[in-house]
């Protein structure tokens, strides 16, 4: 790898680049999915290549190739410099990067069981056992289960002198049961929608999830939804389960704090942000109980946003985003940090693979648990009337991240401090800052889960990235409920 790096760095320098970094990525994946008693998808895949990023004439260029021979990588480095020079034709000022030191290091995701050492036959057997449990309940019309393993090894080098070798294991598992009857299709997922739970772990995650043990309950719930009452429309207190709250954080905190969005760089596709720079350390984002961090360090847990260095060679950090309700931080890169006068990137640049340029991506954007002990049961017990909503079904938010609407798979009425009747098709909507200011309770650490969102899309060309979101069940006062079905 060092040879490849030196060929590239030398070529870039010869071609006039003032900065160059490169990432050689060797990626391996296994995906197995079952559907209604059969294997639906079974594949192994691997991908190897190098992505080269340079600054020449004060502008960025990037080129990538799968061919790691010397002629190829030198030609690709030269190409990146040519692309940068073309970029320089249309610029308003010279590109500046916040300073960063050179780092030489090696790091691997802590794991117990390399998922690729587990047998495919055993993987299939587990999924078919789940499938069988789901379809044992009459009324389940479709059962889908998934196992996903990924090993992502990256060598990063830069003209600053960095030499960083990182290996990540990403494991995911989960399932969904559907029930069609009359004019309704209901769905229940475990342990979360979007394919289940994903973390930077080995196969031990699959064992921790107790997939088979929960399948019968999930199947019974999806069938029972046909008999459930429609979630009422009105303004009510709501309690969100931790996975739905994790997605709420993702959409209404995680995206608007991306500094590239704030600075207009995503205006054509993902949009901009209501969090203009004048709001930093001035905006009351939420109630005093709202504390959100962007934490990529291992101390935070094995989230999909956990690493030791980002894809610009900046060490992982923990950045306070909302502190006792006050907006206190963005997600930044070396160029966006410099653009707003910060003296260092907070290390959030990640690329989907070797053939994509790093972008500011959420790391682990987590709402911290309440400081006082509060169980879910105690939270419900302290609620006179409200709706408890569990597991995301639909999600939508405007391009400045203000107006949102979420639907969940299932809900329950809370009455007199107790969970009551099941409710189908729950939904809620609101305005980001009004919503977070209405949070008046959040459960404590023992109720907190670090969820993985494996499918966050951003950028052009589109990149899909995994992000982490820790959350515990929380209550929000007087939220608009049921507008998804209003007037339809």
């Amino acid at each position: 790898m060092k040879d490849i790096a030196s060929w590239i760095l030398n070529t870039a320098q010869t071609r006039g680049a003032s900065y160059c970094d490169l990432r050689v990525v060797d990626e391996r994946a296994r995906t197995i999915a079952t559907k209604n008693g059969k294997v639906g998808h079974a594949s192994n895949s691997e991908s190897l290549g190098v992505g080269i990023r340079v600054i020449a004439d004060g502008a960025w260029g990037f080129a990538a190739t799968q061919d790691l021979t010397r002629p190829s990588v030198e030609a690709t480095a030269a190409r990146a410099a040519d692309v940068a020079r073309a970029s320089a034709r249309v610029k308003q000022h010279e590109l500046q990067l916040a300073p960063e030191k050179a780092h030489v290091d090696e790091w691997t995701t802590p794991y117990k069981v390399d998922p690729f050492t587990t047998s495919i036959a055993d993987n299939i057997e587990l999924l078919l056992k789940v499938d069988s449990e789901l379809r044992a309940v009459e009324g389940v019309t479709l059962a889908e289960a998934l196992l996903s393993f990924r090993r992502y090894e990256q060598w990063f080098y830069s003209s600053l002198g960095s030499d960083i070798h990182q290996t990540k294991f990403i494991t995911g598992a989960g399932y969904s049961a559907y029930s069609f009857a009359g004019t309704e299709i209901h769905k229940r997922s475990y342990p979360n929608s979007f394919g289940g739970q994903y973390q930077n772990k080995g196969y031990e995650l699959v064992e921790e999830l107790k997939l088979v043990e929960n399948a019968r309950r999930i199947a019974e719930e999806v069938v029972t939804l046909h008999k459930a009452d429609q979630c009422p429309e009105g303004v009510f207190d709501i309690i969100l389960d931790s996975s739905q709250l994790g997605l709420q954080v993702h959409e209404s905190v995680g995206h608007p704090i991306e500094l590239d969005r704030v600075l207009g760089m995503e205006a054509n596709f993902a949009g901009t942000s209501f969090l203009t720079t004048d709001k930093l350390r001035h905006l009351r984002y939420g109630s005093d109980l709202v504390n959100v961090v962007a934490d990529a360090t291992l101390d935070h847990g094995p989230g999909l946003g956990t690493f030791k260095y980002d894809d610009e060679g900046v060490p992982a950090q923990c950045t306070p985003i909302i502190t006792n309700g006050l907006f206190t931080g963005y997600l930044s890169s070396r160029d966006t940090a410099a653009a707003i006068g910060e003296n260092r990137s907070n290390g959030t640049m990640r690329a989907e693979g070797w053939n994509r340029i790093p972008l500011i991506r959420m790391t682990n954007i987590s709402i911290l648990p309440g400081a006082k002990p509060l169980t879910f049961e105690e939270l419900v017990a302290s609620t006179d009337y409200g709706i408890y909503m569990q597991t995301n079904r639909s999600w939508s938010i405007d391009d400045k991240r203000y107006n949102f609407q979420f639907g969940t798979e299932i809900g329950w009425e809370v009455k007199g401090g107790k969970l009551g009747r099941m409710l189908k098709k729950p939904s809620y909507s609101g305005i980001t800052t009004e919503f977070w200011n209405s949070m008046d309770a959040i459960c404590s650490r023992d109720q907190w889960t670090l969820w993985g969102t494996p499918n966050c899309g951003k950028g052009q060309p589109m990149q899909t990235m995994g992000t982490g979101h820790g959350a515990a069940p929380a209550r929000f006062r007087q939220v608009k409920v049921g507008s998804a079905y209003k007037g339809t």
Partner: protein
Amino acid sequence: MLTHEAHSQMLTHEQAEDIFLRLSRYSNADGLEMLISGGHSALTRFANNTIHQNVEEENYVVSVRTVIGRKTARATTNKLDDDSLRRAVESAEAMTEVQVEDPDLLPLAPAPMSEGPPTERYFESTAALTPEDRARAVENIVAVAKKNGLTTAGIFSCSRSAEAIMNSRGLSVFHAQTSSEISITMLAGDSSGWQKANSPDARNLDPLVLAETAARKARDSASPREVPPGKYTVILEPAAVLDLVGFMFFDFGGMAILDQRSFLTNRVGTKLFGDNITVDDDVYHPLQSGAPYDGEGVHRQRVRLIENGVVKNLVYARSTAEKMKKSEHASQVGGIGPTGHGFPLPNEIGEAPLNVVFDAGPEGSRHTVEQMIASTDRGILVTRCWYIREVDPYEKILTGMTRDGTFYIENGRVRHGLRNFRFNESLIHLLSNISEMGTPVRASGEEAFDMVVPPMKAQDFNFTEVTKF
């Protein structure tokens, strides 16, 4: 192995056959199928009147499917040396061996008896576009922005790609094409405008016209006002139509009916939409793009999906057609047979129409957007929709936002820009209430695949909330 020079020159059918021959030497399976795809792609991205990202990529991926008895599995690699190809075959075979027998698995697709209609979608002038060419176009777009006191953001992308499918039953199909796309947002202090176009031939894209239109929308929607949510007459420009209707076409696959996850379950053959809704899937349409065969190499057929509001036909992969014939739905779903719409096997989804073409009726019955506005007493003009998601899968209720140019119409004229709306609208309701349509164009949005759709005027579109800008 392909050298980096060969990459730059594009994969040929002969090179693809050579790779398949090498794979075949390593395989002991009953059947072997290869998909190879890749090429060169480039994208110049600009924001704040500056090119801030500019990327190029060369990559080819070989995907191998092996069949042993009634079992199948897949392995994929982008390493094209002999050792890696051998490992890919071994990996696919090892995964195949441990599969559970699938009695519904068919043998590999046979070689087609005849060629489909030609589809010329490779344009040398698009393949030859350079970073400098793209930068020059961006310079012109930025000049329009500056002339109007705006800032601009967007992309100019282009690619040349090749793909082939070959199998041990003698099937060998190859497709090469170019693509190009320009998307432009113009931003003012409190408003924005947007335009996007996409074509296999970059000469069909006019960055200046797109930039001027986006700039006009940004100017005209300045100082947006708020009107209350409710049901409005709405005029949807083609990109807005595309992103909405795109949410229903995966339900037109036979497998979606068999899985009972389609909103067409128990509805094929019924009149679900207005008389004026007729839709085909037609990869051979002159405004369409993509390969004329599916994930198994089966030639795509033209399929009439909706005729005068009645759901007429579904699309099928080979194995889905066989399953459908034996299913309880067989007598209710119209013609059943492979239509060349399957995804690469093994997969859970089955198939989908991806070359959708709306028929807007004879030219004399069509209306331009300007004519639609002129005939509207009170309504809303929507340039683009955003973050659309399915709320109810059977009633096909979608939620989403308007974006980048939403206007209030009164007494036949656009009066002013509006704060953006959230909608919750059923596609069944929407397509049952279309009062006017324009000439279909190749439209491109962000939520759905590109298709050929007209602008539409609809009654009683359900806006449920307003946002803050």
